[in-house]
């Protein structure tokens, strides 16, 4: 029944209701009036005729009259189907159509009275009157009844009714047509608006509507256009600002690299000679070296993430066997002995080995640093994807932290403000996963379980410029 709530159905129903009711009302009124007029006219004519004929024909009948005279008069008064009974006051004519009700009324009041009765489905007009003497107006002691069929009038009425019905059908059809036309007129702009709103929602902020006419819908379209333009302007400004800030970060990182390289060279020399310095100076030299190393890593990470933001990250896809690649990553960092692995051979996936190395190194490094052993790495094939699962058996991550772990510089432990990492590791890992057309998710296990999923088939076409970037 949902279509009933549609504008089209409602408009058509309204039109049909209004049209139908008008027609039925008009036809009903016409019919009612016609019935009244027809029937009243026929009845009045019959009664008047009856009165005239009684006056005319009974003029020759002198009172007191015998039954024979009265019967003769009745016979004279009967024309067509009309049945007439001329009886003495109070006598009962042998006709069931002359009701006791009518007879009582006729006797009670000196006037012509009538009643409509139905016998065997045929309507009859039954009239009756005590006859007053034409001279003097005193009662003559004679009552005359007439019984006349109204079948003709009834059939005339039926004709009027059927005419009204005949008129009603085309009128209702016209109402349906008018309703559909009106619905179309209203619905086309509404459909346009619906389409435009959907396009706007999809991010095509340049969407505009043609403004036709000057009605409410046209005004709505105009308002929509204004809103879309304002939205486009604000979003453009926001994007501009964001791009500027990203460029600034990239520029800053880049600008820091040169002095950092120099500083690194100096600290290398310092560290090499640290043993020869006195205790305080040696400690200071080692501290500076460590901080410079951290700063270098931070700047590298910043530059990496800037590349992602700028859409400049390049994916060098190779068919790689995931198991050995993960094993090589662990081996190169000397973690092979600390990690339990489950690496089935011969799972070949198109991926960028350097980026897989970055992801796995980050996940395993985090697990070793923040989680508790045993740390396990499993590679599984799940349908169209390959999952690399890194799990530890530490306390895991609190539920309120889980949604935020991939955010930049997000620290799960607020107290541990200065950690060994840059705070960008997981963000970079996720950007790398997204660049592959895969994903990186976290779930609570015994500890924390990070799952990297990579599609087994090459991502269709060019990898999106900014994966994971929401419009």
């Amino acid at each position, binding site marked *: 029944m949902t279509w009933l709530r549609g504008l089209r159905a409602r408009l058509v129903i309204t039109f049909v*209701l209004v049209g139908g*009711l008008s027609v*039925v*009302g008009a036809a*009903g009124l016409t*019919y*009612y009036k016609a*019935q009244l007029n027809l*029937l009243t006219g026929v009845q*009045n004519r019959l*009664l008047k005729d*009856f*009165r005239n004929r*009684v*006056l005319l*024909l*009974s*003029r*020759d*009948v*002198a*009172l*007191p*009259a*015998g039954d*024979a*005279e009265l019967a003769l008069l009745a016979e004279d008064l009967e024309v067509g189907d009309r049945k007439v009974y001329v009886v003495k006051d109070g006598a009962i004519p042998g006709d069931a159509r002359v*009701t006791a*009700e*009518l007879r009582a*009324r006729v006797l009670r*009041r*000196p*006037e*012509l*009275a*009538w*009643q*409509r*009765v*139905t016998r065997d489905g045929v*309507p009859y007009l039954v*009239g009756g*009157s*005590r*006859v*007053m*003497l*034409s*001279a003097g*107006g005193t009662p*003559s002691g*004679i009552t*005359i009844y007439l019984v006349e069929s*109204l079948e003709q*009038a*009834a059939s005339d*009425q*039926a004709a009027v*009714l059927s005419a009204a019905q005949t008129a009603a059908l085309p009128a209702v059809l016209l109402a349906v047509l008018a309703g559909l036309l009106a619905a179309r007129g209203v619905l086309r702009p509404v459909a346009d608006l619906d389409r435009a709103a959907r396009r706007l929602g999809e991010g095509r902020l340049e969407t505009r509507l043609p403004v036709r006419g000057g009605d409410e819908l046209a005004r709505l379209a105009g308002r929509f256009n204004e809103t879309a333009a304002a939205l486009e302007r604000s979003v453009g400004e926001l994007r501009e600002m964001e791009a500027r800030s990203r460029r600034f970060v990239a520029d800053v990182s880049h600008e820091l690299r040169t002095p950092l390289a120099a500083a690194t060279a100096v600290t290398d020399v310092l560290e090499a000679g640290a043993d020869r310095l006195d205790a305080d100076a040696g400690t200071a030299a080692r501290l500076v070296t460590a901080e410079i190393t951290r700063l270098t890593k931070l700047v590298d990470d910043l530059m990496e993430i800037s590349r992602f933001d700028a859409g400049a990250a390049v994916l060098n896809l190779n068919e790689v066997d995931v198991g050995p690649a993960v094993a090589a990553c662990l081996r190169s960092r000397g973690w092979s002995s600390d990690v339990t692995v489950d690496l089935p051979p011969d799972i070949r996936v198109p991926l960028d080995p350097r980026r897989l190395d970055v992801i796995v190194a980050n996940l395993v490094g985090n697990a070793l640093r923040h989680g508790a052993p045993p740390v396990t790495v499993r590679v599984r094939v799940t349908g169209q994807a390959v999952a690399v699962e890194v799990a530890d058996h530490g306390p895991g991550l609190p539920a309120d932290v889980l949604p935020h772990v991939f955010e930049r510089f997000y620290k799960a432990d607020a107290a541990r403000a200065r950690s060994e990492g840059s705070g960008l590791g997981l963000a970079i890992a996720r950007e790398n996963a997204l660049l592959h057309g895969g994903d990186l998710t976290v779930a609570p296990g015994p500890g924390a379980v990070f799952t990297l999923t990579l599609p087994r088939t090459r991502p269709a076409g060019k990898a999106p410029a900014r994966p994971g970037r929401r419009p």
Partner: protein
Amino acid sequence: MRTWPLALLLAACAACGVGPSKVIGAGEPARGFVLGTPLYFVRLDRLVSISRPVGPLEAAEAVELLAEGPTSKEYDRNFDTRLPKNMAVRVNDDGFTLEKSAPMLVNGRWLSPVSRLSRMATGQLVCTIAAATAAKRGMDVDDVRVTVPDKRQVRCKDFS
């Protein structure tokens, strides 16, 4: 809002057709008839009254009309009279007597009036007089006593 179109439709349907009605007055009663004078003639050997659209007349005048016999129209309806043409009737307050006076000219012949009337003829006279008297005094015809020539008092119904 949903009910009134339904009510209208029902009302429209209820008005369909020509239905029975109660008794309704249509003003003015029918008028007609004239007060007449009933005369008694014979039809199929029975006394039958027929009113003439004149009067109401006195008994004597009614008897005069009766003596003239039925009109041709009445005759066509088999009304007949048993009264002899050569009849001289005197109507008094309570009856009638036959006169034995001068001869009467009937159909070009001179006849002496009859001295006796048949039973039917007597009935015609008695009933006509009784009816005229009854109309005048507001009585029933059968309650009126009429004195016939042999001094008896009879009523109209004695002859039916």
